[in-house]
């Protein structure tokens, strides 16, 4: 495919330049950075030297040590640990410790016996790429068959139970969850959460097409020599997958689901990490990998004679299976010649051709050469950096992460790494982050937590950071920290964490941070990005400082823009535009983020999502309200005058102007916070009931709501305005409250006597206003000290009485109607 596109070098250079000018990053960042970046992501499809001849597949070796003779010893050392050479050939070198194989305590419940037989008969054919050696090579056929029968009988009797998974209210697990996997969900998970970082994706899976850059498209048209010359060969090479083997032939739904849920209990080496799957997700992926068909369950140990099992047990030791696999309490026993003393040219070596009684690995020439180089330089020194590199090769961290221009998601897997909701926030939003300088970036505790997958600051990425079994990361956090360590800078980089600094930081957040970042789970509409709450606990102050000052210098191709071009702040209004003080203030705000208000823009946006904005017709909301109570009915009007009615005490309780109310707490917060008016000019009406029957005009106004009217509900009229209906002591009351032209409220009352229960000696009174002191503003109008002015119509006002009882002055009017009466009450405040 490369042969018919032979562009000449000058035009290639021209095209490269053009592509760079077109690409987005070129407009924002120095060209040199982009050049480096482009090397890291170039797409590919170039052939591979890897031989599919059944030689053991070790991802790190295959990707970085197969194509080039450089660093052969490093590749060889990787093979020594991954092929578990040191399980027999002891070595003190921690880096070379044997990977070893699966725990076989429960093999009888986990693997199908016919698969075990086929596998033992020819491991490299049945599971291409397996690192398990053929331990029966050279045995005559019948002897081999008998040995296999015995070992399989022994394994079938390894019956360790499945772990008990506890279903709780917050983590529910279906009974027999492994039977309930869903093929489609499994396919989705398999391609989204990270399985395909190492394993083969399904070409037919409908992942969104990957939009390579102009540069990448152009690269795909170059021929291999040109690519080689540009030094891009590594970047465009297809990354091979860790083979699955015959999963359906090997596992039941149950055994695979349990394995995927917690790989470490079967494979303590951690090479297969946990992707933090829930049990149902593990079942989904198991179903996807095995298929829907209900396969028979696995029943351990049936019908094998004790003598056959015992023979198998003996062979398990004699053939040295027990050097790598745990079963019963058998301990590794064979001690071959120590690694450091091996003669690589010995005629009876297990690295080249297979000999009877020795394990056969099926190594290819490149692998053999690498191992020999490693053995020749067995006592070489290691540094923190080389140790970190060795661990990353073993655990295949490079499948996802780049470090020192090595690794990262390969060209053939780009499209499976997606951002939730397909939001475009660049590769930072979909690819696991580069680990260059990570020891300088993260605090030591955070680095530990990150490697243990205890924190997830990027919920917008589908791919999950895997959890590696206990000790398998072999001090990686420490090695990274040491490798990246820089000389200690001034001790107190950020010393001023005062309230004033935090406030300034909050202002600066609005300048830019909130456009891409969350704060305490809140964010502007459509924004996905890292939540900056807790950043002070994750990041080293120096890195934070340097990153803000010049993001591109710290993280290639980042979308984080600089707010301090040439070291000068773009916002001169905060802290006098002092760059160092501004960065310090951002740190101070983040440090106190839990107690500080949200950035103003987020606060506004948050309310906006659930703010009720009345239009032509009023809106109402029943809720719990401060100063109104648990039976509040808030009514909002397009005129921007609103009120809350208390249906328990049955009274007009509160009014305000401007914005109406935020419904989020009422609608969606389980803990039912009290709603509050969003607007201004909030006025609380006098507490207590509004209607009461009194013996005389000198009787005290009832203090409790026990004598409240009975609330009957409301009707909504043609304009959408509710009329409240209630009843007290023989009177039906209709009460319609709506804004008037003076930005106040007008209340239209209709009172109807429905029976004469009311005794002759008592009268129903309406309390129009009350307070510590009432003031007559004009005829028909009294105001109280809160500023509530109430106007009654004639002749009602003349019948009213102003009196003072127990320090409360109120204005009450008698309702004396044999039939029906109507009047309007006007409120101003």
């Amino acid at each position, binding site marked *: 495919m490369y042969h018919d596109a032979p562009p000449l070098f000058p035009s290639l250079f021209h095209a490269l330049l053009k592509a760079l000018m077109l690409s987005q990053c070129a407009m924002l960042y120095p060209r040199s950075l982009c050049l480096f970046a482009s090397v890291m992501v170039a797409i590919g499809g170039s052939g591979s030297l890897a031989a599919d001849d059944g030689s053991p597949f070790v991802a790190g070796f295959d990707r970085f040590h197969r194509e080039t003779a450089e660093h052969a010893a490093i590749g060889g050392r990787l093979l020594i640990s991954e092929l578990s050479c040191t399980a027999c050939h002891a070595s003190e070198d921690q880096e070379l410790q044997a990977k070893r194989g699966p725990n076989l305590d429960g093999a009888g419940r986990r693997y199908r016996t016919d698969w075990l037989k086929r596998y033992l008969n020819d491991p490299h054919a049945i599971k291409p790429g397996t690192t398990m050696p053929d331990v029966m090579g050279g045995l005559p056929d019948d002897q081999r068959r008998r040995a296999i029968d015995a070992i399989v009988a022994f394994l079938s009797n390894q019956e360790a139970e499945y772990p008990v998974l506890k*279903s709780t*209210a*917050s*983590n*529910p*697990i*279906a*009974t*027999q969850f492994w*039977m*309930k996997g869903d093929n489609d969900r499994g396919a989705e998970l398999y391609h989204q959460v990270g399985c395909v970082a190492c394993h083969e994706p399904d070409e037919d899976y409908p992942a969104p097409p990957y939009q390579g850059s102009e540069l990448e498209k152009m690269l795909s048209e170059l021929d291999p020599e040109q690519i080689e010359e540009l030094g891009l060969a590594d970047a465009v090479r297809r990354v091979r997958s860790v083979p699955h083997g015959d999963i359906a032939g090997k596992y039941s739904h149950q055994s695979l689901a349990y394995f995927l849920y917690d790989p470490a209990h079967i494979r303590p080496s951690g090479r297969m990490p946990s992707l933090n799957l829930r049990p*149902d997700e593990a079942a989904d992926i198991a179903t996807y990998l095995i298929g829907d068909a*209900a396969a028979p*369950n696995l029943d351990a140990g049936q019908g094998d004679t004790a003598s056959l099992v015992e023979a198998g047990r003996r062979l398990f030791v004699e053939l040295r299976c027990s050097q790598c696999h745990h079963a019963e309490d058998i301990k590794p026993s064979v001690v071959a010649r120590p690694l450091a003393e091996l003669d690589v040219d010995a005629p009876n070596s297990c690295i080249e051709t297979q000999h009877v009684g020795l394990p056969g690995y099926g190594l290819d020439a490149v692998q053999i050469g690498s191992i020999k180089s490693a053995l020749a330089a067995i006592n070489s020194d290691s540094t923190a950096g080389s140790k970190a590199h060795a661990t990353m090769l073993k655990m295949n961290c490079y499948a996802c992460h780049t470090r020192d221009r090595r690794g990262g998601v390969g060209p053939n897997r780009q499209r499976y790494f997606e951002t*939730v*909701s397909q939001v475009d926030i660049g590769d930072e939003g979909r690819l696991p982050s580069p680990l260059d300088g990570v020891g300088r970036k993260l605090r030591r505790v955070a680095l530990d937590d990150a490697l243990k997958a205890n924190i997830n600051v990027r919920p917008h990425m589908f791919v999950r950071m895997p959890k590696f079994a206990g000790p398998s990361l072999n001090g990686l956090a420490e090695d990274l920290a040491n490798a990246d360590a820089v000389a200690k800078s001034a001790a107190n980089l950020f010393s001023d964490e005062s309230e004033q600094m935090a406030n300034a930081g909050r202002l600066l957040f609005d300048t830019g941070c909130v456009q891409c970042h969350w704060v305490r*789970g*809140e964010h502007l*509409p459509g924004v996905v990005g890292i939540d900056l709450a807790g950043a002070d606990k994750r990041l080293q102050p120096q890195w934070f400082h340097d990153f803000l000052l010049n993001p591109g210098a710290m993280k290639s191709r980042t979308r984080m823009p600089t707010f301090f071009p040439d070291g000068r702040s773009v916002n001169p209004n905060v802290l006098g535009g002092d760059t160092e003080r501004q960065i310090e203030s951002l740190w101070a705000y983040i440090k106190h983020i839990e107690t500080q208000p949200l950035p103003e823009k987020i606060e506004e946006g948050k309310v906006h*999502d659930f703010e009720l904005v009345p239009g032509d017709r009023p*809106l*109402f*909301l*029943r*809720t*719990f309200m401060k100063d109104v109570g*648990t*039976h509040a*009915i808030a009514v909002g009007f397009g005129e921007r005058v609103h009120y809350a009615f208390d*249906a*328990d005490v049955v009274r007009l309780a509160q009014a305000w102007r401007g914005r109406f109310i935020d*419904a*989020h707490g*009422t*609608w*969606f*917060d*389980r*803990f*039912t916070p*009290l709603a509050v008016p969003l607007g201004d000019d909030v006025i609380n009406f006098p507490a207590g009931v509004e209607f009461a029957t009194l013996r005389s005009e000198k009787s005290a106004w009832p203090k409790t709501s026990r004598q409240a009217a009975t*609330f*009957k*509900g*409301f*009707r*909504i*009229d043609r304009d959408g305005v*509710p009329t409240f*209906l209630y009843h007290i002591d023989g009177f039906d009351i209709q009460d319609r409250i709506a804004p008037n032209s003076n930005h106040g409220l007008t209340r239209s009352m209709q009172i109807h006597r429905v029976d004469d229960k009311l005794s002759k000696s008592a009268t129903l009174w309406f309390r129009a206003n009350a307070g510590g002191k009432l003031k007559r503003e004009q005829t028909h109008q009294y105001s109280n000290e809160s500023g509530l002015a109430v106007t009654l119509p004639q002749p009602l006002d003349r019948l009213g009485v102003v009196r003072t009882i127990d320090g409360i002055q109120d204005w009450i009017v008698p309702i004396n109607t044999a039939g029906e009466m109507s009047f309007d009450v006007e409120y101003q405040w």
Partner: protein
Amino acid sequence: MVKLNCEKPFWHRSKTSCVVIAIVVISLCDHRLPAVADESDYYRMITIATSKSSTESRSKRWKPALDALALEVSGLAVLDDHRIAVAIRKGEVWILDGVYDDPPDQVTYKQFATGLHEPLGLLRHDDSLYVMQRTELTRLRDTDGDDVADEYMTVAKGWGVTGNYHEYAFGPKIDHDGNLWFTLNLGLGLQKEQLRKVIKNESLGVAQGLWRGWGMKVTPAGEMIPVCAGMRSPSGIGVNRQGDMFYTDQQGNWVGTNTLHHMREGAFFHHPDALASMNQSGSPIHGIDSIPGGLPFPEAIKRLPQLKPPAVWFPYKKVGQSATDIMLDDSGGAFGPFDGQLFVGEFTLSSISRVFLERVDGEYQGACFPFREGFASAVIRMEQGTDGGMFVGLSNRGWSSLGTASYGLQRLVWTGKTPMEIKEMRACSDGFELVFTKPVDTASAEDAESYSISSYTYNYHATYGSDEIMTERPSIEDVSVSDDGLRVKLTVAGLRELFVHELHADGVRSRDGEPIVHPAAYYTLNRIP
């Protein structure tokens, strides 16, 4: 109700123990079908609407997708053969048209009512929709024919509302006399201001809002009557074919596992906090001055005569973790072979269970069975459509569910294929009688080895939930199968009153060799007939 005569009925054949049968059973086991039959072969799910939220169900900052209606279905009312009304948790009622379509791809939504306070139930009655809000039972009516409610009339109110989040109100459901029933959740962890609004019972040391933890009814004349008490979180109410009213409760303090109770006057169910209102005017419960806590439930019953056992215990996880709504299958067979039985929703496991009830000495008791799993979210409401199919309302906000959608509306319809199930499990004086949906294979059904039984009870204590305690394994002494193959009589030694009897009939096959879809049944044996 006819009392069962379990003395060797004429249709029972005496079992002849036979080596041949044993061999047949063993060979059946060897070639058995998958352990779990596929529920979807018999009951098919149709999704009308579901949604995923980007926020975790327990998050304080929960938000729905902003461009969609947050269809957190908390109430369902069937209107006719093309429309239903749906209440949603944020406080609205919507009319959905086209919901019976298959696939339901032309459904239209019209808002009927708004501004309601967390409605958790909806009922169509006369020309109105009745909706249960936190603070009142409301009758919604459209008086001008535009399909939008313009009357929000208060039918009942006055119970304590302190403002505590856990004070949910559920209902209404209507009985055969036209009474509207509802239940009032207990508050949990009341704070400062909320504590000023409680009623106290000093001698029992309990404090709650008025009538909290009670079952209430409103008569057709509008009178609100407190009926029974001791509820913890009674999120489901339902009427059976006889017109008796039931509710479900949720495991927690004083509640060993989820339960189904017959609501009737003066009954006290379990949670003592409800007794805060015992001495209030109208209370039919009197004279409880101490609670016999920390005892096995059967022992506590002996010490406290007002304490009534549940009609059914739902053993934790085996039949759900959080029971919700109750739905009577009143379809006369259009929903499959369980006509007249009750279905109970399940929140956490996103499933539905099934209940068979019978009356022994006038009191209800019976068995529960797993029925259907795999709903998109937590099942909180169910209602039978005019075609017999079931509408299932979903929302998991605030807790967690196996179904990962935040909310939705699904339908469950019978495929017409009869599942092999234990339709009924009836108590007899000397064991149990099983009634199957299809004739059993005699050889497998006659083998005592095809069955196993255990029995246990729960602690009655202030602790959250209870383990199964005092477990025994009663022995199956005899098995006989009716000539028509539909009934199996198990003679069991060691029955215990007030204990749950858990039966597994894994070995039984239908005449066509099918295994039982759900081979376990859990009978609450309050009384031995």
